[in-house]
């Protein structure tokens, strides 16, 4: 389970995330939606321990990230938006490095082979990451996330640049992880995918929460009928939020 309470993050004087609170339950996929610069990547990076919040608390699988960083991180897996894997490692070595970092080398070869097969990377097993295309690097990053037994998965735009088969496999693996009780927080701009894949949606704008709930709850919040798509709901809610912000500003 992932619990975020009052997460606030400043970059210098710029407020990137403003008192964000939400939860991702066990066996749930929460879609994180928002316009560019809304603070999605900052939230994911804060949970991944890359940036440190100025205020708030992050609990990963019951462990406080600030107080018990290593135990909390042991339960986490993070897929960055534009992955830059170690170019001078082979695909296999890269996976092995991640497995070593999480101290999960048991049956590593079997798990690595299975993952490489699923993501069509078996042929590239002994190739340097340097030689991989952008999409293959994205697949490798996804494979790295599944090489250890993470209980909380953080995925930042994971489907961008991946071919349809790879995307299908990744979605399948996300669903399988969810069914195995994992908490998954996924940031995406692909609203149709979010609509099909996510159990709940969290819409944020300018570092603040705009709306949170199931698709039906969001329909109600936006005062739209059930035939409205997530795209319609998203546009309505973010426009309303911007209008409220402007009205408050003036």
């Amino acid at each position, binding site marked *: 389970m992932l619990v975020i309470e009052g997460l606030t993050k400043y970059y*210098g*004087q710029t407020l990137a995330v403003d008192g964000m609170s939400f939860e991702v339950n066990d066996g749930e996929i929460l879609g994180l939606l928002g316009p560019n610069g809304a603070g999605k990547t900052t939230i994911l990076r804060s949970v*991944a*321990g*890359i*940036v*440190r919040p100025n205020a708030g608390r992050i609990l990963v699988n019951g462990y406080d990230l600030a107080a018990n*960083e*290593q*135990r909390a*991180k*042991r339960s*986490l*897996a*993070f897929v*960055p938006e534009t*992955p*830059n*894997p*170690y*170019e*001078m*490692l*082979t695909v296999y*070595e*890269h996976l092995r*490095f*991640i497995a*070593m*970092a*999480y101290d999960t080398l048991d049956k590593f070869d079997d798990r690595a082979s299975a993952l490489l097969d699923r993501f069509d990377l078996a042929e590239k097993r002994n190739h*340097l990451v*340097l030689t991989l295309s952008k999409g293959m690097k994205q697949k490798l*990053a996804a494979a*790295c996330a599944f090489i250890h037994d993470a209980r909380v998965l953080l995925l930042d735009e994971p489907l961008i640049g991946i071919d349809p088969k790879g995307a299908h496999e990744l979605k399948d693996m996300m669903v399988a992880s969810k069914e195995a009780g994992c908490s998954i927080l996924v940031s995406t701009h692909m609203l149709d995918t979010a609509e099909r894949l996510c159990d709940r949606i969290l819409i944020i704008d300018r570092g603040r929460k705009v709306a949170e709930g199931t698709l039906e709850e969001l329909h109600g919040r936006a005062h739209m009928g059930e035939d409205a798509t997530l795209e319609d709901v998203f546009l309505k809610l973010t426009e309303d939020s911007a209008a409220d912000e402007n009205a408050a500003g003036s």
Partner: protein
Amino acid sequence: MKMLLDLELRQFVNYMKLTLRSPKRLIPALLMLAYILWFFQMGMLGSREFRELPRGVPAAGLAVPDFVWPLVWAGVFGLLTLVLVYRLLRAFSQSLIVFGLAEIDFLFPVPISCRLIMLFKLLKLYVTVAAFATFFLIFYWLMFGAFAGSSGGGPSLLAAWAAVTLYAVLVINVCTTVNLVATFRAGGRWWLAWAVRLAAVAIVIFSVVGVLVGYQRSGDIAASLTHTLRHPVLTTLVLPVKWTTDLVTSPFAGWKPGFGYEFAALFALAGASLALTLSRKENPYEPSLNISVRHAMYRLAFCTWDFSKLRAEAWKNRRKAGGVRTWISPFGRGAVAVFWKNSNISVRTSGTVIVLILLLAVLLLIGLRVAFTHTAIPPREAGIIAALALLYVMWLFLLFSLRSLRLDVKQANILKPMPIRAWKLMLAETLSGTTPYSLFVWLAVALVGATFGLSGSPLVPAAFVLPLLAHACISLQLAVGIIYRDVGDKAQQLIAGALGMSAALLAIGLPLAVAIILHALGLGFVLPAIAASCIAIAISAAGIALGAEVYKRHDPTDE
């Protein structure tokens, strides 16, 4: 730590394997190795030559005048102080520790203590510094070994090496700590930041003023420099710099009893500063996030020699800061619009403007030099020198213009569907490269003319010929630029460079050769200039026609 070492080792082994397998990487590596060997060979030659010198100063071992060692001490002290001041001032905005993008994406999120990662990163930096120090130690040992040996310099050399390394460790640790504190406490303790900045600036001001006042009093710049830099106030302010300087110069200036304590103190300070850095609770990753992206951009730019993204980023930042306004609006139709767009990019991304200003400064210097001595140099010869200088400047412009041309051709998937005839587009591309140079030539000729007058000077015909030569040169390179347009591919770079150079030599060499022959036949400057211009125009036309044909057949999607 074992896992991080394993990561480094595997990357190193893979890098070596890749270098050995790829000629593209192996050849530059072998050249670098040859250069290093040559460097050491020079050192050994130097050593032999020094051995043959008479020994005039037994204590120091080297036969050099007495005033040299204080100057060497002052030079080393000044250099080390400058390094400290510069790094301290930079530390407020940029960390010395730069994490790579791979480390941000794949190392930061894993359950390894960030203190351990920080320590590993620092150790890597220390090893790099120590390796550099070793490189120079070996060189200087080869060069001055015999003399250092005569003054008991073997241990001193090691002490000098260790002192340089320890000093670098100290600077790295202090600056990293300052950066961590400054990043997370920008609002609070602002006075501390200003105190450090003021101290750094005060050291520089104290040194400069001290040297100037001393020089005014004594008239001896060397004496005032050594006196100021040995002043107790300064040496106390930057005590570790004094210790390092004493130890670094000890192999040649002689070892003194107090140096052992200085070494111990330097060692203790380096250790204490490491403890201080590792005791910080701030997140060490965060200061690196933006720097890593910028660092990666710089690396890519230097690998591909494509600085357009960096320039665009700089432009964006300046616009954010409100420093520059977009003051050139779109203009023209068809090829004219393309030409205007290229000029607009040149001005906006400032690279060309900077080059223009620098070159203008160089030319002004040449002009001033000629002005001071123009009684000795007749205007005709001064004009020839200036014309040759402008020809040299053309080379510099061509380096930039061919690169811009190739980058623009890379955007052919946008340009090609436009309803613009191929030859017009090629003309626009060529003119985009020629125009800044032409403006520069005319400005330079006007300046020189205003200073010396242009009557009978070859600069007047040169003002017409040189832009045409540049035009011919770029035109003839169009086809090469289109065929080998990928600036990121080193093989294409090599071929484009070689072919482009040949084309440029032909475009410049042929008209110039004809002009020189005609001038030698006693036809003055004007007729040869007209002949050279005609040849340049013909070459331009041929180049544009060839470029247009290649462009028509060129498939922009075929990468």
